[in-house]
């Protein structure tokens, strides 16, 4: 309760008239916005400790690589398998690589990578910051004249913002390779044909559209996870509940925002 005081609004008056769920949602939205603003101001006023950022880069990037690759390769394989057998009915299985590639790069790569990172990294951030909050370690940072936002939030936010697009590119490549594997072994397409066919239709703007989305997803995941971690109340039980909330909120935010970001990038390009 005490460690998260800076994130809270004491206003009570109008809150009583609103449904509890709406109040909680608006509280979280306000808290995340304030925390984000605070993080940006802090990062510009005094650069973050790069040692802390590099630790988080390893935590978010390197340690998530296997789960991202696993998800990407099997998604690519399943897409190719499904589309291959369906398109073969119309004699159009030569288009498999184009459909698999474009859908992976524009859509499934960024979204699935974000969902994996939301689950693995988002939950980890909330659990770590939540444990620090309930054991007074966050208050101890403040009591020592230091800033929890600078030392805890900014490095995590930066690490996710940098690593999610990188992981998305790697995931896209691995997913395409998964599709290629099925194309060659199951659909009897040559590797050269598969790649040529894909490169004929895949545009740079497809890649940028996917990467643009992943930057937004990264912000949503890191901001939600840090806010939930610092707002934990009620000991170990509270940490567990906050971790679950982070995974649910991050996943829903990624899926819902994906629609609007897709519209936005379609208009922009």
């Amino acid at each position, binding site marked *: 309760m*005490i460690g998260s005081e800076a994130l809270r609004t004491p206003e009570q008056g109008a809150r009583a008239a609103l449904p509890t769920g709406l109040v909680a949602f608006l509280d979280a939205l306000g808290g995340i916005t304030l925390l984000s603003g605070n993080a940006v101001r802090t990062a510009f006023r005094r650069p973050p400790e790069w040692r802390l950022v590099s630790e988080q880069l390893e935590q978010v990037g390197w340690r998530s690589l296997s789960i991202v690759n696993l998800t990407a390769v099997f998604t690519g394989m399943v897409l190719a398998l499904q589309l291959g057998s369906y398109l073969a009915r119309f004699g159009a299985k030569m288009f498999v690589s184009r459909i698999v590639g474009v859908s992976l790069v524009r859509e499934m790569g960024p979204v699935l990578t974000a969902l994996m990172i939301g689950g693995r990294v988002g939950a980890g951030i909330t659990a770590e910051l939540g444990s620090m909050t309930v054991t*007074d*370690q966050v*208050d101890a940072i*403040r009591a*020592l004249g230091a800033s929890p936002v600078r030392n805890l939030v900014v490095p995590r936010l930066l690490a996710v913002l940098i690593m999610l697009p990188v992981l998305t590119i790697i995931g896209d490549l691995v997913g395409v390779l998964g599709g290629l594997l099925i194309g060659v072994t199951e659909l009897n397409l040559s590797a050269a044909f598969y790649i040529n066919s894909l490169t004929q239709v895949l545009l740079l703007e497809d890649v940028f559209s996917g990467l643009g989305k992943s930057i937004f997803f990264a912000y949503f995941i890191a901001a939600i996870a840090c806010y939930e971690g610092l707002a934990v109340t009620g000991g170990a039980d509270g940490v567990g509940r906050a971790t679950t909330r982070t995974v649910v909120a991050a996943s829903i935010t990624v899926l819902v925002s994906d629609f609007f970001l897709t519209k936005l990038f379609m208009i922009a390009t």
Partner: protein
Amino acid sequence: MTAEIHIRCRGLEKRFRDKAVLRGVTLDVRTGETLVVLGGSGSGKSVLLKHMNALLTPDAGSVEVEGVVLGNCREDDLARIRRNVAMLFQQAALFDSLTVAENVAYPLREHHLCAEQELRERVRVALDMVGLAGTESLMPSELSGGMRKRAALARALVLEPRAILYDEPTTGLDPVVAAKVNHLIRDLQRRLGLTGVVVTHDLGSAFFVADRIAFLHDGRIRFVGPPEEARASTDPHLHEFLTAA
């Protein structure tokens, strides 16, 4: 003689949701004294303590530290004030991922106060002061409860504060270790002239370290005075608290 006031609380009120924890607390902490805030569990002692270094902000009322009103300060100014008003947390609050030496060095590194060579020396002196020489490379999980409290005290002292806030310093310690911590609090006051505020419900500890005692009950200060006057107090709640032990 009028003693100089180090920390001045005026009409502090604090609510958490529907629960009023502080209901108009007015309390002065004199420079160089050790003031013990006594009170039962949930009486608001820790909440009061966390107002004294602005870890909490009051819903009403004000806190002044060395004449500076904390409510008017920006976070940067508060950081400077907090360097002079250290705090020992109930659960020690050592950083799990850092060694004892790194924990103690944390505030020095954070504020870039000295070169690495001098930093190591200051960490060694701080650990020596609390009787933890030789524990530099241990992790907090390898320390006993008493050692964790003393390591946290070393971390609080390394910035050479002028005041220190102790939140339940002897809770969870066996009597021998608790006595060591009590002696340490007294010793620090004598040697360094530190102003101390000790929040506790441990009467043995309270009467050992206190120059004055304040009794907090139901969000209000019911008594402030020297330990001998506390024993003779006619306030029914304080009397009950002291005799129940």
